[in-house]
């Protein structure tokens, strides 16, 4: 049996917590790696966008935005009806699942590349497009009966948060940089898997700690944190089929549907819905959904996409 080296680092991080021998991972290193990954993903997408810009891509982008709007509308009633959650918490958690996890996307890309499976390289554009719509929907779901309006500070948080800025910035530099971008690609291309491995080492530590903090309030959310990746992933796979994507593209679209945000959305929710219990949403998306996606859902969707294309 062979295990992907990048995934093995995630397991190593989790193992250190379970063995009660946690590795001290410097916060500044984690911040630097996150910054690196987002720029690298954006740059790669920008270069690909230069080669693939077309009217069809605009239609695909519109479909992706609608997809990002749809998922919170599915998650919200599930959380309200089955989970008995209040309006604010249900809306906040739904927003997390409508948005995407760049870390999960990076893992899916690494797995596709290690298996030599082709994918549409302009996918980072979709990652950027999927970050914000769910935040807006989540806030609307939470405030629709109280009549609150979103304020400028919040709009700024949505538009100018670090992940959107870096991904979009990288995308623009990759698109407009022309041949000069190739000069910096050895740093952002060759080192990408190694940086991702370090990122996953830290994420393994954080996810395992979150899992240990699961309490009675999260009884239902454990099941929800597994159900949403399956449901969102299958919807993403369906969208990938409709968009006539390659096997890798379908798997990536399923990954985007399956993942839940743990960076951009928590920051926006803290600002816009301070009364929501951020521990519930982050523990679910980071402690349950992220490891489930990395270890189970992403390999499953890659296998299923390959099978769908072959048959």
């Amino acid at each position, binding site marked *: 049996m062979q295990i992907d080296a990048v995934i093995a680092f995630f397991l190593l991080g989790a193992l250190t917590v379970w063995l009660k021998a946690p590795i001290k991972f410097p916060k500044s290193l984690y911040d630097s790696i996150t910054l690196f990954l987002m720029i690298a993903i954006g740059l790669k997408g920008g270069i690909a966008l230069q080669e693939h810009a077309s009217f069809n891509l605009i239609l695909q982008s519109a479909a992706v935005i609608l997809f990002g709007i749809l998922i919170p509308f599915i998650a919200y009633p599930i959380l309200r009806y089955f989970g008995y959650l209040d309006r604010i918490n249900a809306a906040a958690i739904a927003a997390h699942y409508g948005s995407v996890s760049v870390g999960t996307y990076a893992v899916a890309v690494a797995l596709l590349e290690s298996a030599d499976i082709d994918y549409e390289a302009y996918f980072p554009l979709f990652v950027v497009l999927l970050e914000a719509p769910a935040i807006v929907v989540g806030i609307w779901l939470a405030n629709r009966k109280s009549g609150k309006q979103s304020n400028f500070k919040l709009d700024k948080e949505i538009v100018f948060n670090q992940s959107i800025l870096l991904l979009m910035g990288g995308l623009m530099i990759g698109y407009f940089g022309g041949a000069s971008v190739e000069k910096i690609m050895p740093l952002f291309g060759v080192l990408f898997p190694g940086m991702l491995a370090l990122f996953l080492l830290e994420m393994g530590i954080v996810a395992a700690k979150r899992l240990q903090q699961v309490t009675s309030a999260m*009884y239902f959310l454990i099941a929800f944190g597994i159900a949403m990746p*399956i449901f969102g992933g299958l919807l993403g796979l369906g969208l990938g089929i409709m968009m006539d994507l390659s096997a890798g593209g379908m798997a990536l679209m399923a990954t985007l549907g399956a993942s839940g945000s743990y960076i951009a959305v928590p920051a926006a929710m803290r600002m816009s819905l301070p009364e929501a219990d951020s521990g519930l949403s982050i523990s679910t998306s980071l402690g349950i959904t992220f490891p489930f996606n990395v270890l189970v859902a992403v390999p499953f969707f890659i296998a299923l996409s390959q099978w769908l294309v072959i048959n």
Partner: protein
Amino acid sequence: MLDRQTCFMVAVAISLCVMAYVSVMIGHSSVAALITAALVIALLVMKNVKKVERPSQKKQLNLPLVSE
């Protein structure tokens, strides 16, 4: 009679079993093994936490946020 939360959890467990079955059918038994392991771990974690009926009774977690 099963309540809504239990029904949902049963549905999730069935979904995982279906995923494992599909994985075997498409020739990826290693993925099926991972799914089975996830199901077992999820059941073990849930066994260790007490069920809550209504949100009004739930404890506020106030966990520290992950480093941004």
